[in-house]
């Protein structure tokens, strides 16, 4: 089976052709190595980095921005969002702090700071 994909790794957005044979995928049209990896992953097991905000208990006037340290499986995105929506942290939080350890195989870390 052949799939045409748009690489989302960088703004260049290469159009990729992926030839899929069971577990092996050969990718063409990519300008760099990361495109090849993206093409393979997108065909076998698509993943995305998720970014979101979570509530800060003692600072009702602001939200804390967070991201997954690694991309997670696409099918878990909404489950993760549901967890994050129900979560609160307590300020102060510094950028880079781990907010949630080991969730869907990765960490959730703060991308901003709240004093």
């Amino acid at each position, binding site marked *: 089976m052949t799939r045409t994909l748009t690489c*989302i790794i960088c*703004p260049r*957005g290469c159009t990729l052709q992926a030839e899929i044979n069971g577990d092996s995928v050969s990718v063409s049209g990519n300008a760099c190595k990361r495109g090849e990896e993206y093409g393979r992953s997108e065909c076998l097991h698509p993943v*995305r980095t998720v970014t979101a*905000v979570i509530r800060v208990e003692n600072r009702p006037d*602001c939200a804390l*921005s967070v991201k997954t340290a690694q991309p997670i499986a696409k099918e878990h995105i909404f489950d993760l969002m549901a967890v994050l*929506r129900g979560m609160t942290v307590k300020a102060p939080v510094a950028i880079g702090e781990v907010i949630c350890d080991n969730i869907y195989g990765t960490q959730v870390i703060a*991308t*901003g700071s709240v004093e």
Partner: protein
Amino acid sequence: MKNHDIVIIGGGPAGMAAAVAAFDSGVRDVVIIDREDNLGGVLKQCIHNGFGLHKLGKELTGPEYAHVYAQQVRERGIKVYSGTTVTRITSDKIVTATNTDGILKIQAKAVVLAMGCRERSRGALNISGTRPAGVYSAGTAQKLINCDGYMVGKRVVILGSGDIGLIMARRMTLQGAKVEAVCEILPYSGGLTRNIVQCLEDYGIPLHLSTTVAEIHGSERLEGVTVAQVDQNRAPIESTRRYIPCDTLLLSCGLIPENELTLNAGIELDKVTGGAVVDQFRQTSIDGIFACGNVLQVHDLVDHVSDEAECAGASAAKYVLGNPSECGRITTCAGEGVRYVLPQRVLLSGEQVSLYLRVREPQTGVKLVVKSGERIIKTFPRLKAAPGEMEKLDIPMSLLSDADKTLTVSMEVQ
């Protein structure tokens, strides 16, 4: 009146990078004036990732990218007047600003304009209908959700498919809203293809091209919008009108460089870019006043903003440290298929000059041709070109030494 060597107006990505570059070029007395409480500008609300690949070699979110530069500003001890709004700049570089302490006047030796841009509003779009709550510019909604922690609606229509509109479609969906449609008046999206894929296609959000919002309905809160396809003159086609119930309409219909201060100072503006007319050192029509970032031209990528701001900051430092030698100058102009070229003036100085431009329409298999009169200076082939993706053409200065007074850049189909 206070005195500072270089005053930078704006503490977003452009202002921060300009300040750091000015400092690193040898001027120690650099200050940033920022109307917000924290540095970072619009990056603070852009919590999605994809920033910094080109400039920092890693993929960061907006707040993280801002943090890198804010840190550099802090490390250098660059003074930041935060919560301070500049109200006036004069041609002799007196900057007037206001904050809770009162009015501040600074005599600067050089000024860097880095005020960014604003979103086109509903008023400017002339959408007919009522004026209910629930109509937001996409960036306002983004700030409310990402910085202030409010959710703005549950059932959403987005007008405009530029990157902010696309990013917000995904953001609203992830926060639990249903995005009914993204409508785009043009026959193509102005956003990056990767954003159409990862923001719309990933979540099954329909993109309707050549479609606009013809009417807004609802008395207190938005109840729905009438969308319609448009003809070649972008006028809604009556027979295609259809009603979409929704409680929220986000407008992502273009950004306008915020140049009221620039205009007031008597600086020449470019009608197409909406920003100042500059040379390749980002100096405006007034000596010692420089411009960079979205106040100069609306960029697609913050990495390019940082690059441009570093150029402006370093140029401002050079201006403060000594007079540049006189050299010849030529002007650039946009030819067939090209909307604008920046810088508008090229000084015949330095090793090479980078011309930035946007094409008028998406096209595949093209070449961008730089000409002096009838003579071709350089040709740049491109597999594809689109208005949403700024082009950069590097031209060795040696090719321009005997060029005419005007350089024209046009797009030709190969």
